[in-house]
Protein backbone atom coordinates (compact mmCIF):
# COMPACT_ATOMS: atom_id res chain seq x y z
CA UNK A 1 0.00 0.00 0.00
CA UNK A 2 1.32 3.44 -0.91
CA UNK A 3 -0.20 6.80 -0.06
CA UNK A 4 1.53 9.93 -1.22
CA UNK A 5 0.95 13.58 -2.00
CA UNK A 6 1.20 14.31 -5.72
CA UNK A 7 0.33 17.99 -5.63
CA UNK A 8 -1.49 20.52 -3.49
CA UNK A 9 -4.79 18.89 -2.60
CA UNK A 10 -4.08 15.83 -4.75
CA UNK A 11 -3.13 12.48 -3.22
CA UNK A 12 -2.53 8.99 -4.64
CA UNK A 13 -3.55 5.81 -2.87
CA UNK A 14 -2.14 2.71 -4.52
CA UNK A 15 -3.75 -0.49 -3.24
CA UNK A 16 -3.05 -2.70 -6.25
CA UNK A 17 -2.77 -6.37 -5.35
CA UNK A 18 -4.99 -6.03 -2.30
CA UNK A 19 -8.24 -7.93 -1.91
CA UNK A 20 -11.32 -7.05 0.15
CA UNK A 21 -11.65 -5.41 2.56
CA UNK A 22 -8.29 -3.63 2.32
CA UNK A 23 -8.90 -1.29 -0.68
CA UNK A 24 -12.18 0.06 0.69
CA UNK A 25 -10.88 0.45 4.24
CA UNK A 26 -7.73 2.26 3.05
CA UNK A 27 -9.85 4.48 0.80
CA UNK A 28 -12.16 5.36 3.67
CA UNK A 29 -9.24 6.21 5.93
CA UNK A 30 -7.51 8.28 3.24
CA UNK A 31 -10.68 10.28 2.53
CA UNK A 32 -11.22 10.85 6.23
CA UNK A 33 -7.76 12.44 6.53
CA UNK A 34 -7.71 14.83 3.56
CA UNK A 35 -9.50 18.18 3.44
CA UNK A 36 -12.88 18.80 1.73
CA UNK A 37 -12.23 19.57 -1.95
CA UNK A 38 -9.02 17.47 -2.01
CA UNK A 39 -8.82 14.69 -4.55
CA UNK A 40 -7.60 11.16 -3.85
CA UNK A 41 -6.65 9.03 -6.85
CA UNK A 42 -7.32 5.42 -5.85
CA UNK A 43 -5.58 2.68 -7.85
CA UNK A 44 -6.88 -0.84 -7.25
CA UNK A 45 -7.41 -4.12 -9.09
CA UNK A 46 -9.99 -5.91 -6.98
CA UNK A 47 -13.30 -5.44 -8.88
CA UNK A 48 -15.61 -6.01 -5.89
CA UNK A 49 -13.87 -3.24 -3.94
CA UNK A 50 -15.05 -0.83 -6.65
CA UNK A 51 -18.67 -1.63 -5.85
CA UNK A 52 -18.06 -0.94 -2.16
CA UNK A 53 -16.11 2.27 -2.77
CA UNK A 54 -18.82 3.60 -5.11
CA UNK A 55 -21.53 2.81 -2.57
CA UNK A 56 -19.47 4.36 0.21
CA UNK A 57 -19.09 7.61 -1.75
CA UNK A 58 -22.83 7.61 -2.43
CA UNK A 59 -23.41 7.55 1.32
CA UNK A 60 -20.76 10.06 2.34
CA UNK A 61 -21.39 12.46 -0.54
CA UNK A 62 -17.79 12.23 -1.81
CA UNK A 63 -17.77 12.54 -5.58
CA UNK A 64 -16.11 10.13 -7.97
CA UNK A 65 -14.82 12.51 -10.64
CA UNK A 66 -13.38 9.97 -13.09
CA UNK A 67 -13.28 6.21 -13.42
CA UNK A 68 -10.67 4.50 -15.62
CA UNK A 69 -10.60 0.77 -16.18
CA UNK A 70 -7.92 -1.03 -18.15
CA UNK A 71 -6.81 -4.65 -18.09
CA UNK A 72 -8.30 -5.39 -14.69
CA UNK A 73 -6.87 -2.23 -13.11
CA UNK A 74 -9.08 0.61 -11.89
CA UNK A 75 -8.06 4.25 -11.35
CA UNK A 76 -10.68 6.45 -9.69
CA UNK A 77 -10.37 10.12 -8.76
CA UNK A 78 -12.47 10.88 -5.71
CA UNK A 79 -13.14 14.38 -4.41
CA UNK A 80 -13.87 14.68 -0.73
CA UNK A 81 -17.16 16.46 0.02
Amino acid at each position, binding site marked *: *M*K*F*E*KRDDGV*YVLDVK*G*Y*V*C*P*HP*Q*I*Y*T*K*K*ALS*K*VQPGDVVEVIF*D*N*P*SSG*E*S*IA*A*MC*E*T*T*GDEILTKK*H*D*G*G*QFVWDIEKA
Partner: protein
Amino acid sequence: MSTTAIDIATTEASNSALEKDLRKKRYWAYGVTVFFALISIGTFLYSEYYIYLSVYLWFGFIYGMCLQYGRFCFSSAFRDLFAVGVPRMAVGIMIATVLFAAVSAFITSTGLSTFHAAPTSIHAFIAGLIFGVGMVFAGGCASGSLYKTGEGNMSALLVILSISVTQALFADMAGWTNALVPDAWHESAVAKGLPDTINAGDGWVDQYLAGYVWNQPVLTFATLFGMSDESIAGAFLGNMLVGVLFPAALLLVIVYFGWSRRAFLRRRVKEKGHSTFRDELAGYWAMITANRRTAIAGLLLGIFCGLQMLVTQGLRVKFGIQNAGTLLERLGFDYGISINNTVFDPGYWYVTTQEAQWVGWVFNKFGADNMDNIYFGFVNGIPNPAVNPADWMSLALIGGAAVMALLHNEFKFKKPTLELAVWAMIGGALMGIGSRLGLGCNVGAFFVRVAQGDTSGWLFGLGMIGGAYIGVKFFNWWTERRMAKEFASCDL
Protein backbone atom coordinates in the same frame (compact mmCIF):
# COMPACT_ATOMS: atom_id res chain seq x y z
CA MET B 1 5.21 14.54 -37.69
CA SER B 2 3.39 17.10 -35.53
CA THR B 3 2.77 16.49 -31.81
CA THR B 4 -0.98 16.10 -32.47
CA ALA B 5 -0.36 13.52 -35.18
CA ILE B 6 1.93 11.58 -32.81
CA ASP B 7 -0.75 11.73 -30.08
CA ILE B 8 -3.40 10.40 -32.49
CA ALA B 9 -1.09 7.61 -33.70
CA THR B 10 -0.27 6.67 -30.08
CA THR B 11 -3.96 6.63 -29.09
CA GLU B 12 -4.84 4.50 -32.12
CA ALA B 13 -2.04 2.04 -31.33
CA SER B 14 -3.16 1.85 -27.71
CA ASN B 15 -6.82 1.32 -28.73
CA SER B 16 -5.78 -1.39 -31.14
CA ALA B 17 -3.74 -3.14 -28.40
CA LEU B 18 -6.71 -2.86 -26.06
CA GLU B 19 -9.07 -4.33 -28.64
CA LYS B 20 -6.63 -7.16 -29.30
CA ASP B 21 -6.42 -7.88 -25.58
CA LEU B 22 -10.22 -7.84 -25.23
CA ARG B 23 -10.58 -10.18 -28.22
CA LYS B 24 -8.03 -12.55 -26.69
CA LYS B 25 -9.93 -12.58 -23.41
CA ARG B 26 -13.19 -13.23 -25.22
CA TYR B 27 -11.61 -16.25 -26.97
CA TRP B 28 -10.43 -17.55 -23.61
CA ALA B 29 -13.97 -17.18 -22.27
CA TYR B 30 -15.36 -19.16 -25.19
CA GLY B 31 -12.58 -21.71 -24.72
CA VAL B 32 -13.45 -22.30 -21.07
CA THR B 33 -17.14 -22.69 -21.93
CA VAL B 34 -16.39 -25.11 -24.76
CA PHE B 35 -14.11 -27.10 -22.44
CA PHE B 36 -16.95 -27.69 -19.97
CA ALA B 37 -19.38 -28.42 -22.81
CA LEU B 38 -17.01 -31.05 -24.19
CA ILE B 39 -16.71 -32.67 -20.77
CA SER B 40 -20.51 -32.86 -20.53
CA ILE B 41 -20.99 -34.19 -24.05
CA GLY B 42 -18.06 -36.61 -23.95
CA THR B 43 -18.97 -38.15 -20.61
CA PHE B 44 -22.63 -38.38 -21.56
CA LEU B 45 -21.72 -40.28 -24.73
CA TYR B 46 -19.74 -42.67 -22.53
CA SER B 47 -22.58 -43.19 -20.05
CA GLU B 48 -25.86 -41.37 -19.48
CA TYR B 49 -25.19 -41.48 -15.72
CA TYR B 50 -22.69 -38.67 -16.20
CA ILE B 51 -25.55 -36.29 -16.81
CA TYR B 52 -26.00 -36.35 -13.02
CA LEU B 53 -22.51 -34.88 -12.65
CA SER B 54 -23.07 -32.47 -15.51
CA VAL B 55 -26.08 -31.02 -13.70
CA TYR B 56 -23.77 -30.15 -10.83
CA LEU B 57 -21.29 -28.77 -13.33
CA TRP B 58 -23.66 -26.42 -15.13
CA PHE B 59 -25.35 -25.14 -12.01
CA GLY B 60 -21.87 -24.47 -10.62
CA PHE B 61 -21.01 -22.62 -13.83
CA ILE B 62 -24.14 -20.47 -13.50
CA TYR B 63 -23.41 -19.75 -9.83
CA GLY B 64 -19.90 -18.63 -10.81
CA MET B 65 -21.23 -16.28 -13.47
CA CYS B 66 -23.83 -14.83 -11.10
CA LEU B 67 -21.37 -14.40 -8.23
CA GLN B 68 -18.81 -12.61 -10.42
CA TYR B 69 -21.42 -10.46 -12.14
CA GLY B 70 -22.88 -9.26 -8.84
CA ARG B 71 -19.54 -9.33 -6.95
CA PHE B 72 -21.58 -11.51 -4.67
CA CYS B 73 -19.63 -12.25 -1.52
CA PHE B 74 -21.26 -13.12 1.79
CA SER B 75 -18.19 -11.86 3.57
CA SER B 76 -18.74 -8.34 2.36
CA ALA B 77 -22.39 -8.36 3.46
CA PHE B 78 -21.71 -7.50 7.06
CA ARG B 79 -18.03 -6.68 6.84
CA ASP B 80 -18.70 -3.71 4.52
CA LEU B 81 -21.53 -2.53 6.75
CA PHE B 82 -19.19 -2.37 9.73
CA ALA B 83 -16.06 -1.32 7.84
CA VAL B 84 -17.29 1.30 5.37
CA GLY B 85 -21.04 1.61 6.01
CA VAL B 86 -22.08 -0.02 2.71
CA PRO B 87 -25.27 -2.12 2.79
CA ARG B 88 -25.39 -3.31 -0.86
CA MET B 89 -24.34 -6.92 -0.24
CA ALA B 90 -26.45 -7.41 2.88
CA VAL B 91 -29.38 -6.35 0.68
CA GLY B 92 -28.32 -8.61 -2.19
CA ILE B 93 -28.05 -11.63 0.06
CA MET B 94 -31.45 -11.03 1.58
CA ILE B 95 -32.96 -10.77 -1.92
CA ALA B 96 -31.30 -14.04 -2.95
CA THR B 97 -32.40 -15.77 0.24
CA VAL B 98 -36.02 -14.68 -0.10
CA LEU B 99 -36.12 -15.77 -3.77
CA PHE B 100 -34.45 -19.08 -2.95
CA ALA B 101 -36.94 -19.54 -0.09
CA ALA B 102 -39.90 -18.97 -2.42
CA VAL B 103 -38.64 -21.49 -4.99
CA SER B 104 -37.71 -23.93 -2.22
CA ALA B 105 -41.14 -23.68 -0.60
CA PHE B 106 -42.69 -24.73 -3.89
CA ILE B 107 -40.26 -27.63 -4.31
CA THR B 108 -40.62 -28.80 -0.70
CA SER B 109 -44.40 -28.77 -0.97
CA THR B 110 -44.17 -31.04 -4.03
CA GLY B 111 -42.07 -33.50 -2.01
CA LEU B 112 -39.06 -33.16 -4.33
CA SER B 113 -36.71 -31.30 -1.99
CA THR B 114 -33.25 -32.76 -1.43
CA PHE B 115 -32.74 -30.75 1.76
CA HIS B 116 -32.25 -32.15 5.27
CA ALA B 117 -32.33 -29.74 8.21
CA ALA B 118 -29.40 -29.69 10.64
CA PRO B 119 -29.40 -29.87 14.45
CA THR B 120 -29.98 -26.53 16.15
CA SER B 121 -27.97 -25.43 19.17
CA ILE B 122 -25.36 -22.93 20.31
CA HIS B 123 -22.73 -24.81 18.27
CA ALA B 124 -24.12 -23.21 15.09
CA PHE B 125 -23.59 -19.71 16.53
CA ILE B 126 -20.05 -20.48 17.72
CA ALA B 127 -19.19 -22.05 14.35
CA GLY B 128 -20.56 -18.98 12.57
CA LEU B 129 -18.52 -16.69 14.82
CA ILE B 130 -15.25 -18.48 13.98
CA PHE B 131 -16.22 -18.61 10.30
CA GLY B 132 -17.11 -14.89 10.33
CA VAL B 133 -13.71 -13.82 11.69
CA GLY B 134 -12.05 -16.11 9.15
CA MET B 135 -13.91 -14.71 6.15
CA VAL B 136 -12.94 -11.13 7.02
CA PHE B 137 -9.28 -12.11 7.46
CA ALA B 138 -9.32 -14.10 4.21
CA GLY B 139 -10.94 -11.31 2.22
CA GLY B 140 -13.83 -13.48 1.07
CA CYS B 141 -16.21 -16.19 2.17
CA ALA B 142 -16.02 -19.79 0.94
CA SER B 143 -18.07 -19.12 -2.23
CA GLY B 144 -16.54 -15.67 -2.73
CA SER B 145 -13.05 -17.17 -2.72
CA LEU B 146 -14.11 -19.57 -5.48
CA TYR B 147 -15.38 -16.83 -7.78
CA LYS B 148 -12.43 -14.57 -7.02
CA THR B 149 -10.11 -17.42 -8.01
CA GLY B 150 -11.95 -17.32 -11.33
CA GLU B 151 -10.99 -13.63 -11.61
CA GLY B 152 -7.34 -14.67 -11.42
CA ASN B 153 -6.92 -13.81 -7.75
CA MET B 154 -4.33 -16.21 -6.32
CA SER B 155 -4.91 -15.04 -2.74
CA ALA B 156 -8.40 -16.49 -3.09
CA LEU B 157 -6.90 -19.75 -4.34
CA LEU B 158 -4.73 -19.84 -1.23
CA VAL B 159 -7.86 -19.34 0.87
CA ILE B 160 -9.47 -22.36 -0.83
CA LEU B 161 -6.36 -24.45 -0.23
CA SER B 162 -6.28 -23.43 3.41
CA ILE B 163 -9.99 -24.21 3.92
CA SER B 164 -9.55 -27.57 2.20
CA VAL B 165 -6.46 -28.73 4.09
CA THR B 166 -7.71 -27.49 7.46
CA GLN B 167 -10.98 -29.33 7.10
CA ALA B 168 -9.36 -32.58 6.00
CA LEU B 169 -6.96 -32.45 8.96
CA PHE B 170 -9.54 -31.26 11.49
CA ALA B 171 -12.13 -33.91 10.58
CA ASP B 172 -9.61 -36.71 11.16
CA MET B 173 -7.87 -35.27 14.22
CA ALA B 174 -7.45 -37.77 17.06
CA GLY B 175 -4.62 -38.47 19.56
CA TRP B 176 -4.14 -35.64 22.05
CA THR B 177 -7.41 -33.99 21.04
CA ASN B 178 -9.32 -36.89 22.65
CA ALA B 179 -8.27 -35.44 26.01
CA LEU B 180 -10.31 -32.32 25.18
CA VAL B 181 -13.53 -34.25 24.66
CA PRO B 182 -16.03 -34.11 27.56
CA ASP B 183 -16.85 -37.55 29.02
CA ALA B 184 -20.53 -37.10 28.21
CA TRP B 185 -19.74 -36.63 24.49
CA HIS B 186 -17.49 -39.70 24.49
CA GLU B 187 -20.08 -41.91 26.18
CA SER B 188 -22.87 -40.67 23.95
CA ALA B 189 -20.77 -41.16 20.79
CA VAL B 190 -19.85 -44.73 21.75
CA ALA B 191 -23.48 -45.49 22.64
CA LYS B 192 -24.57 -44.62 19.07
CA GLY B 193 -23.34 -48.08 18.03
CA LEU B 194 -21.62 -46.98 14.82
CA PRO B 195 -19.61 -49.63 12.93
CA ASP B 196 -16.28 -50.60 14.52
CA THR B 197 -14.35 -49.36 11.47
CA ILE B 198 -15.55 -45.83 12.21
CA ASN B 199 -14.52 -45.91 15.85
CA ALA B 200 -16.74 -43.03 16.97
CA GLY B 201 -15.09 -42.93 20.41
CA ASP B 202 -11.81 -41.76 18.87
CA GLY B 203 -11.26 -38.31 17.35
CA TRP B 204 -12.47 -34.90 18.46
CA VAL B 205 -14.82 -34.19 15.56
CA ASP B 206 -16.32 -37.71 15.68
CA GLN B 207 -17.21 -37.31 19.34
CA TYR B 208 -18.41 -33.76 18.79
CA LEU B 209 -20.74 -34.98 16.05
CA ALA B 210 -22.01 -38.27 17.48
CA GLY B 211 -21.76 -37.26 21.12
CA TYR B 212 -23.12 -33.72 20.96
CA VAL B 213 -24.44 -32.40 17.63
CA TRP B 214 -26.59 -35.42 16.78
CA ASN B 215 -28.29 -35.13 20.19
CA GLN B 216 -29.55 -31.62 19.43
CA PRO B 217 -33.05 -31.04 18.07
CA VAL B 218 -33.62 -30.66 14.33
CA LEU B 219 -35.97 -27.71 13.95
CA THR B 220 -37.58 -25.81 11.13
CA PHE B 221 -39.98 -22.90 11.50
CA ALA B 222 -42.75 -25.13 10.12
CA THR B 223 -42.22 -27.84 12.73
CA LEU B 224 -41.98 -25.21 15.48
CA PHE B 225 -45.56 -24.26 14.61
CA GLY B 226 -46.70 -27.88 14.45
CA MET B 227 -46.77 -28.10 10.64
CA SER B 228 -44.93 -30.56 8.44
CA ASP B 229 -42.27 -29.17 6.11
CA GLU B 230 -43.91 -30.79 3.07
CA SER B 231 -47.37 -29.32 3.70
CA ILE B 232 -48.29 -26.19 1.76
CA ALA B 233 -48.89 -24.28 5.00
CA GLY B 234 -45.62 -25.53 6.48
CA ALA B 235 -43.54 -24.76 3.40
CA PHE B 236 -45.04 -21.35 2.55
CA LEU B 237 -46.26 -19.95 5.86
CA GLY B 238 -43.92 -21.61 8.35
CA ASN B 239 -40.63 -21.87 6.53
CA MET B 240 -40.91 -19.10 3.93
CA LEU B 241 -43.03 -16.36 5.48
CA VAL B 242 -42.12 -16.67 9.16
CA GLY B 243 -38.72 -18.28 8.69
CA VAL B 244 -37.34 -16.09 5.92
CA LEU B 245 -39.51 -13.21 4.74
CA PHE B 246 -40.24 -11.61 8.14
CA PRO B 247 -36.69 -11.90 9.52
CA ALA B 248 -35.20 -10.72 6.19
CA ALA B 249 -37.50 -7.68 6.10
CA LEU B 250 -36.66 -6.91 9.73
CA LEU B 251 -32.95 -7.22 9.05
CA LEU B 252 -33.29 -4.85 6.10
CA VAL B 253 -35.19 -2.35 8.26
CA ILE B 254 -32.32 -2.46 10.76
CA VAL B 255 -29.80 -1.99 7.94
CA TYR B 256 -31.87 0.90 6.53
CA PHE B 257 -32.06 2.75 9.84
CA GLY B 258 -28.48 1.97 10.75
CA TRP B 259 -26.63 2.63 7.51
CA SER B 260 -28.79 3.93 4.67
CA ARG B 261 -31.52 6.27 5.94
CA ARG B 262 -29.46 9.26 7.00
CA ALA B 263 -27.70 9.75 3.66
CA PHE B 264 -30.92 9.26 1.66
CA LEU B 265 -32.97 11.71 3.72
CA ARG B 266 -30.12 14.22 3.71
CA ARG B 267 -30.31 14.24 -0.09
CA ARG B 268 -34.12 14.52 -0.04
CA VAL B 269 -34.06 17.42 2.40
CA LYS B 270 -31.44 19.13 0.26
CA GLU B 271 -33.70 18.74 -2.81
CA LYS B 272 -37.11 19.48 -1.28
CA GLY B 273 -36.38 21.15 2.03
CA HIS B 274 -38.19 18.46 4.01
CA SER B 275 -38.91 14.71 4.10
CA THR B 276 -42.08 12.71 4.69
CA PHE B 277 -43.04 9.09 5.41
CA ARG B 278 -43.27 8.59 1.66
CA ASP B 279 -39.59 9.49 1.48
CA GLU B 280 -38.84 6.87 4.13
CA LEU B 281 -40.51 4.22 1.95
CA ALA B 282 -38.70 5.55 -1.11
CA GLY B 283 -35.43 5.37 0.83
CA TYR B 284 -36.08 1.76 1.84
CA TRP B 285 -36.84 0.84 -1.76
CA ALA B 286 -33.85 2.82 -3.06
CA MET B 287 -31.60 0.85 -0.70
CA ILE B 288 -32.96 -2.43 -2.07
CA THR B 289 -32.52 -1.42 -5.70
CA ALA B 290 -29.36 0.65 -5.24
CA ASN B 291 -27.03 -1.88 -6.78
CA ARG B 292 -28.59 -3.38 -9.88
CA ARG B 293 -25.85 -5.95 -10.46
CA THR B 294 -26.02 -7.31 -6.93
CA ALA B 295 -29.82 -7.42 -6.98
CA ILE B 296 -29.91 -9.23 -10.34
CA ALA B 297 -27.29 -11.74 -9.17
CA GLY B 298 -29.28 -12.34 -5.99
CA LEU B 299 -32.44 -12.87 -7.98
CA LEU B 300 -30.83 -15.38 -10.36
CA LEU B 301 -29.00 -17.22 -7.58
CA GLY B 302 -32.23 -17.63 -5.65
CA ILE B 303 -34.02 -19.09 -8.65
CA PHE B 304 -31.21 -21.38 -9.85
CA CYS B 305 -30.46 -22.71 -6.36
CA GLY B 306 -34.06 -23.88 -6.14
CA LEU B 307 -34.01 -25.31 -9.65
CA GLN B 308 -30.92 -27.38 -8.91
CA MET B 309 -32.82 -29.23 -6.17
CA LEU B 310 -35.66 -29.96 -8.56
CA VAL B 311 -33.46 -31.20 -11.40
CA THR B 312 -31.26 -33.34 -9.13
CA GLN B 313 -34.23 -34.98 -7.48
CA GLY B 314 -35.74 -35.62 -10.91
CA LEU B 315 -32.57 -37.43 -11.97
CA ARG B 316 -32.52 -39.45 -8.76
CA VAL B 317 -36.02 -40.66 -9.55
CA LYS B 318 -35.05 -41.37 -13.18
CA PHE B 319 -32.00 -43.43 -12.21
CA GLY B 320 -33.67 -45.00 -9.15
CA ILE B 321 -31.02 -43.81 -6.70
CA GLN B 322 -30.91 -41.95 -3.40
CA ASN B 323 -27.29 -40.89 -3.59
CA ALA B 324 -24.53 -40.44 -6.18
CA GLY B 325 -22.51 -43.19 -4.46
CA THR B 326 -24.73 -45.75 -6.20
CA LEU B 327 -24.10 -44.09 -9.57
CA LEU B 328 -20.34 -44.04 -9.04
CA GLU B 329 -20.42 -47.76 -8.21
CA ARG B 330 -22.45 -48.42 -11.37
CA LEU B 331 -19.79 -46.51 -13.30
CA GLY B 332 -17.11 -48.70 -11.74
CA PHE B 333 -15.74 -46.19 -9.22
CA ASP B 334 -15.93 -47.80 -5.79
CA TYR B 335 -12.83 -46.21 -4.27
CA GLY B 336 -13.52 -43.74 -1.49
CA ILE B 337 -17.22 -44.55 -1.09
CA SER B 338 -18.41 -44.38 2.53
CA ILE B 339 -19.35 -47.42 4.58
CA ASN B 340 -23.01 -46.55 3.85
CA ASN B 341 -22.30 -46.65 0.09
CA THR B 342 -22.72 -42.88 -0.07
CA VAL B 343 -20.68 -39.90 -1.21
CA PHE B 344 -21.35 -36.25 -0.60
CA ASP B 345 -24.31 -35.45 -2.80
CA PRO B 346 -26.35 -32.56 -1.40
CA GLY B 347 -28.36 -31.89 -4.55
CA TYR B 348 -27.98 -28.16 -3.99
CA TRP B 349 -25.29 -25.51 -3.83
CA TYR B 350 -22.57 -26.37 -1.34
CA VAL B 351 -18.92 -25.44 -1.08
CA THR B 352 -16.77 -26.74 1.74
CA THR B 353 -17.28 -30.50 1.99
CA GLN B 354 -16.06 -31.16 -1.53
CA GLU B 355 -13.01 -29.06 -0.71
CA ALA B 356 -12.27 -31.26 2.29
CA GLN B 357 -12.88 -34.36 0.19
CA TRP B 358 -10.29 -33.72 -2.48
CA VAL B 359 -7.59 -33.09 0.10
CA GLY B 360 -8.82 -36.13 2.04
CA TRP B 361 -8.47 -38.14 -1.18
CA VAL B 362 -4.91 -36.88 -1.70
CA PHE B 363 -3.97 -37.66 1.91
CA ASN B 364 -5.48 -41.13 1.53
CA LYS B 365 -3.47 -41.74 -1.63
CA PHE B 366 -0.35 -40.82 0.32
CA GLY B 367 -1.19 -43.45 2.91
CA ALA B 368 -3.33 -41.60 5.50
CA ASP B 369 -5.92 -43.79 7.22
CA ASN B 370 -8.69 -41.17 7.09
CA MET B 371 -11.75 -43.30 6.35
CA ASP B 372 -12.14 -44.26 10.02
CA ASN B 373 -14.04 -41.09 10.91
CA ILE B 374 -17.68 -40.11 10.61
CA TYR B 375 -17.16 -37.22 8.20
CA PHE B 376 -15.37 -39.15 5.47
CA GLY B 377 -15.86 -42.82 6.32
CA PHE B 378 -19.49 -42.87 7.46
CA VAL B 379 -21.14 -40.07 5.48
CA ASN B 380 -19.32 -38.26 2.67
CA GLY B 381 -16.58 -40.55 1.41
CA ILE B 382 -13.50 -39.35 -0.45
CA PRO B 383 -14.16 -40.27 -4.08
CA ASN B 384 -11.71 -39.43 -6.83
CA PRO B 385 -12.17 -35.65 -7.40
CA ALA B 386 -12.42 -36.35 -11.14
CA VAL B 387 -15.78 -38.08 -10.57
CA ASN B 388 -16.95 -36.26 -7.43
CA PRO B 389 -20.19 -34.45 -8.41
CA ALA B 390 -19.72 -31.63 -5.91
CA ASP B 391 -16.14 -31.07 -7.08
CA TRP B 392 -17.47 -30.69 -10.62
CA MET B 393 -19.73 -27.96 -9.26
CA SER B 394 -16.91 -26.05 -7.56
CA LEU B 395 -14.53 -26.29 -10.51
CA ALA B 396 -17.25 -25.14 -12.88
CA LEU B 397 -18.06 -22.29 -10.49
CA ILE B 398 -14.48 -21.06 -10.85
CA GLY B 399 -14.82 -21.51 -14.62
CA GLY B 400 -18.11 -19.62 -14.80
CA ALA B 401 -16.63 -16.73 -12.82
CA ALA B 402 -13.57 -16.72 -15.09
CA VAL B 403 -15.79 -16.54 -18.18
CA MET B 404 -17.74 -13.60 -16.79
CA ALA B 405 -14.56 -11.81 -15.69
CA LEU B 406 -12.91 -12.38 -19.08
CA LEU B 407 -15.95 -11.10 -20.96
CA HIS B 408 -15.98 -7.91 -18.87
CA ASN B 409 -12.21 -7.38 -19.01
CA GLU B 410 -11.97 -7.93 -15.27
CA PHE B 411 -9.76 -10.98 -15.31
CA LYS B 412 -6.32 -10.27 -13.93
CA PHE B 413 -3.81 -12.80 -12.71
CA LYS B 414 -2.73 -11.55 -9.29
CA LYS B 415 -0.02 -13.13 -7.16
CA PRO B 416 -0.53 -12.65 -3.43
CA THR B 417 1.88 -10.54 -1.42
CA LEU B 418 3.32 -12.13 1.70
CA GLU B 419 0.92 -10.12 3.86
CA LEU B 420 -2.13 -11.26 1.90
CA ALA B 421 -0.88 -14.86 1.80
CA VAL B 422 -0.66 -14.90 5.60
CA TRP B 423 -4.18 -13.48 5.96
CA ALA B 424 -5.45 -15.97 3.39
CA MET B 425 -3.98 -18.93 5.25
CA ILE B 426 -5.18 -17.78 8.68
CA GLY B 427 -8.64 -16.81 7.40
CA GLY B 428 -8.99 -20.02 5.40
CA ALA B 429 -8.03 -22.13 8.41
CA LEU B 430 -10.61 -20.38 10.61
CA MET B 431 -13.27 -20.86 7.92
CA GLY B 432 -12.31 -24.53 7.62
CA ILE B 433 -12.74 -25.08 11.36
CA GLY B 434 -15.96 -23.05 11.43
CA SER B 435 -17.34 -25.06 8.53
CA ARG B 436 -16.78 -28.39 10.19
CA LEU B 437 -18.21 -27.20 13.50
CA GLY B 438 -21.24 -25.70 11.78
CA LEU B 439 -21.65 -28.53 9.24
CA GLY B 440 -21.26 -26.09 6.36
CA CYS B 441 -20.10 -22.64 5.31
CA ASN B 442 -21.82 -19.37 4.40
CA VAL B 443 -23.66 -21.30 1.68
CA GLY B 444 -24.42 -24.72 3.20
CA ALA B 445 -24.85 -23.66 6.81
CA PHE B 446 -26.39 -20.23 6.27
CA PHE B 447 -27.83 -19.46 2.83
CA VAL B 448 -29.33 -22.87 2.06
CA ARG B 449 -30.53 -23.58 5.59
CA VAL B 450 -32.11 -20.18 6.14
CA ALA B 451 -33.94 -20.45 2.82
CA GLN B 452 -35.36 -23.83 3.84
CA GLY B 453 -36.63 -22.52 7.19
CA ASP B 454 -33.95 -24.36 9.19
CA THR B 455 -33.50 -22.48 12.47
CA SER B 456 -29.81 -23.41 12.72
CA GLY B 457 -29.18 -21.32 9.58
CA TRP B 458 -30.06 -18.08 11.36
CA LEU B 459 -27.90 -19.05 14.37
CA PHE B 460 -24.93 -19.60 12.06
CA GLY B 461 -25.75 -16.27 10.36
CA LEU B 462 -25.86 -14.38 13.65
CA GLY B 463 -22.50 -15.90 14.51
CA MET B 464 -21.13 -14.76 11.14
CA ILE B 465 -22.30 -11.21 11.82
CA GLY B 466 -20.53 -11.24 15.20
CA GLY B 467 -17.42 -12.70 13.62
CA ALA B 468 -17.45 -10.09 10.86
CA TYR B 469 -17.65 -7.34 13.50
CA ILE B 470 -14.64 -8.74 15.38
CA GLY B 471 -12.69 -9.14 12.12
CA VAL B 472 -13.44 -5.57 11.04
CA LYS B 473 -12.40 -4.17 14.44
CA PHE B 474 -9.10 -5.94 14.04
CA PHE B 475 -8.54 -4.73 10.46
CA ASN B 476 -9.43 -1.17 11.42
CA TRP B 477 -6.66 -1.27 13.98
CA TRP B 478 -4.29 -2.91 11.50
CA THR B 479 -4.86 -0.43 8.65
CA GLU B 480 -4.76 2.53 11.03
CA ARG B 481 -1.32 1.39 12.14
CA ARG B 482 -0.10 0.90 8.57
CA MET B 483 -1.38 4.25 7.34
CA ALA B 484 -0.09 6.32 10.25
CA LYS B 485 3.42 6.54 8.71
CA GLU B 486 2.09 7.40 5.25
CA PHE B 487 -0.13 10.15 6.65
CA ALA B 488 2.77 11.56 8.65
CA SER B 489 4.94 11.79 5.52
CA CYS B 490 2.16 13.82 3.85
CA ASP B 491 1.77 16.08 6.92
CA LEU B 492 -1.75 14.82 7.50
